[in-house]
């Protein structure tokens, strides 16, 4: 049994008093809850202890029994108080042969997609989940890929770096040549395509579509139709499919279908070394490579217990805020695409983005994907003249261009007509759905991790948390412009006082080992809370590497927001939420 730290130590006596014997300290971090009491404990935490925010739900597979526990799935829930402070991790153990746990979705809608993802990846069944279908893969996919004993077709060895494939030298052999089917394919024994039901996935989806949100009291029963938007559609911001049940033009039910860009980040991440994962994080939310790097490095530093030099902290803040400006401008620009002025606004955003990318390229060498942050600092110091260039941008050019773009968008009649009062998300629902970042703040909840749990020295900077009142699409758009102004404010302060000193305190080796333990590190990424849940067994590779993808969880209210709206509003609402498919599907 581990020693309790932080929030868990604080709350444990109160929980133990209310639920005697149901909880005990977990091996590494947080509390273990008896599965039968999970829902009651979560409800108590929310209703009486102010843990309103269920941030992340995931699982870890332990196929080998340890001295203390039998082989098990360890389900991990991270809760937060909206008044700030650290996380509370709840663990639930599920039997590995017949994994069933009660679902939190009826109480916490935020768990909806995350529980479906755990079912998809681990095969843990959630009792009471209203719609437990696979999330990222398709119905019928063979096996549950994140289980430790599931091997993909190109499997070579458990951990990187792999042993030399060619100890005697010679030309590299493509992975295809080493597999029996000569491709990345893996079929169960004796599988026959003629006996297979290829329609199952769509049939289950449409069954769900037809049964959900029925209104038996509707006086006139009209014919409804199902419309599929995507996966190839210019307004879905990538490959994303929306199945919509329509009554005329009115949306009766909307069901998002994910997974068209599922790139196995988590499975590949468990095989990579800790440092090899940094460039992979770039490719999650590819608009904000910098902040993805940062979130992962902060999570690693929590396990390593490393201090980051002052100069590196300030550089991180500068990069993160520039990334926020890029993201919000691009989000606003592409929102223009969605509401009716095709690419015009996006062109304004892309023009300024190029100038910031030049700065990023000068420090990291990469135009779009940077691989710049490192645990313990950053990869490289600023080149000569960088600060002057950045100041020129922050003081002279960006304010004017952003002013222009803001006026053009926010005062535009089309934008106002298409977004005021469209997709209203009340604050209580925003919290319940687990939304984060601009979506949460636009509903009037002043929650910003830069203030709630400061990192990188954000507490030294003077800035406001921007909030809005109505929670509609227009507020979400306007709030992004507000945040750009705050980012510029932070940048002015940071650029004026970059401390001297080293940018990297520790010497990094490729086989960097993290001490055994688990942690959850998070930052306020431009799109919301980006968290990394890391489990280390003390080796050079992560035991579990989970990404709390804010783009995915921000989409949880999509079905709620679009219900009863017109089909054209679906596009506007989706655009106002701001998503990157690379992060949604991972």
């Amino acid at each position, binding site marked *: 049994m581990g020693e309790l730290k932080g929030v868990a130590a604080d709350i444990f006596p109160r929980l133990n008093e209310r639920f005697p014997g149901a909880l005990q300290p977990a091996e590494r971090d947080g509390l273990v809850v008896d599965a039968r009491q999970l829902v009651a404990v979560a409800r108590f935490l929310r209703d009486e202890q102010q843990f309103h925010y269920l941030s992340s739900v995931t699982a870890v597979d332990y196929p080998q029994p340890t001295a203390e526990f039998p082989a098990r799935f360890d389900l991990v829930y991270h809760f937060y108080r909206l008044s700030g402070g650290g996380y509370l991790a709840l663990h639930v153990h599920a039997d590995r042969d017949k994994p069933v746990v009660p679902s939190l979705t009826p109480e916490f809608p935020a768990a909806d997609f995350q529980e479906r993802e755990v079912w998809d990846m681990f095969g843990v069944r959630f009792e009471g989940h209203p719609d437990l279908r696979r999330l*990222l*893969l*398709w119905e*019928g*996919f*063979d096996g549950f*890929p994140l289980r430790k004993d599931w091997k*993909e*077709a*190109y*499997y*070579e060895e458990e951990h990187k770096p792999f042993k030399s494939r060619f100890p005697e030298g010679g030309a590299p052999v493509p*992975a*295809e040549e080493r597999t*029996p*089917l*000569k*491709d*990345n*394919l*893996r*079929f*169960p*024994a*004796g*599988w026959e*395509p003629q006996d*297979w039901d*290829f329609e199952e*996935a769509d049939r289950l989806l449409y069954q769900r579509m037809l049964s959900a949100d029925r209104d038996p009291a509707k006086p006139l029963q009209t014919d409804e139709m199902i419309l599929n938007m995507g*996966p*190839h559609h*210019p307004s879905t911001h*990538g*490959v994303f499919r929306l199945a919509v049940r329509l009554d005329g033009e009115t949306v009766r039910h909307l069901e998002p279908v994910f*997974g*068209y*860009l*599922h*790139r*196995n980040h988590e*499975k*590949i991440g468990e*095989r990579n070394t800790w440092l090899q994962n940094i*460039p*992979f994080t770039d*490719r999650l939310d*590819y*608009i904000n490579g910098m902040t993805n790097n940062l979130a992962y490095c902060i999570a690693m530093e929590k396990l390593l217990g490393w201090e980051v030099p002052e100069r590196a902290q300030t550089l991180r803040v500068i990069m993160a805020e520039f990334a926020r400006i890029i993201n919000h401008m691009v989000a606003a620009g592409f929102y223009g695409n969605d509401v009716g002025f095709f690419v015009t606004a*996006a*062109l304004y955003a*892309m*023009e300024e*983005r*190029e100038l910031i990318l030049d700065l990023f390229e000068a420090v990291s060498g990469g*135009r*779009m*994907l940077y691989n710049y942050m490192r645990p313990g600092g950053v990869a490289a110091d600023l080149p000569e003249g960088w600060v002057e260039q950045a100041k020129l941008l922050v003081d002279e050019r960006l304010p004017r261009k952003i002013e222009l773009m803001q006026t053009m968008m926010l005062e535009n009649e089309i934008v106002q007509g298409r977004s005021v009062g469209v997709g209203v998300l009340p604050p209580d629902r925003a919290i319940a759905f687990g939304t984060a970042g601009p979506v949460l703040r636009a509903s009037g909840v002043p929650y910003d991790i830069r203030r709630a749990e400061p990192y990188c020295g954000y507490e030294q900077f003077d800035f406001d948390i921007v909030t809005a009142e109505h929670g509609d699409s227009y507020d979400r758009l306007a709030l992004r412009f507000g945040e750009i102004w705050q980012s510029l404010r932070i940048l002015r302060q940071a650029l004026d006082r970059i401390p001297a000193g080293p940018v990297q305190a520790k010497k990094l080796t490729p086989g960097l080992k993290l001490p055994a333990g688990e942690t959850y590190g998070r930052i306020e990424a431009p799109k919301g809370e980006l968290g990394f849940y890391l489990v280390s067994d003390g080796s050079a590779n992560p035991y579990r590497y989970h990404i709390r993808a804010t783009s995915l969880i921000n989409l949880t209210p999509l079905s709620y927001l679009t219900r009863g709206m017109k089909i054209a509003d679906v596009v506007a609402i989706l655009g106002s939420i701001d998503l990157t*498919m*690379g992060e949604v599907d991972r």
Partner: protein
Amino acid sequence: MKYVELPEIPPELQTTVRLTTVDQLYNWARQRSLWPIFFGLACCAFEMIATAASRYDLGRFGMEIMRASPRQADLIMITGTVTKKMAPQLVRLYNQMAEPKYVLAMGACAISGGPFKEGYSVVSGVDKLIPVDVYVPGCPPRPEALLHGILALHARIGQESTRQMRAFRKAPDEGIPVPLLGPDLVDWRRYEGLMEPARVEVDWKEL
């Protein structure tokens, strides 16, 4: 465009009348009005958008009109990782494009699966599904690299002849059989040829 100057034309008309072949003229026109489909998969899609935006400006090559419908497009740029779940849709999109059509594989993922190749749901290169004309390496390729790839495609179009082009074949285009999602991606073309011997040789339990 190659052309011949005609001696019998009066000198004042020499600059306005040219003698050339149908192929030359046809290719010259096609090179300068390629319409790409507005189709983005992953990270590279954002570099494609950056290439289309003001600094790099695809409009210089007559390509600024990106069409949402495959029926109106000549070029599909595969900008990112092709996953197994996306494969049926991608083949369907390709089949829906009208001939002559071209495919540009942009970035490491589209070429071979790239950094995600070992993943269980990633197709090892889009050329396993549809024929590719130009490969642009990089992760992601810079806009300059994409422009170079597009110029390479222009050069390729310039060498085509109406006598050999796929678009002018007499036989109807059957299209590529759309793969299906079973326990894994089932590509019927491969199933016919590849799975048959595999049933004899492969010990399924080993997989």
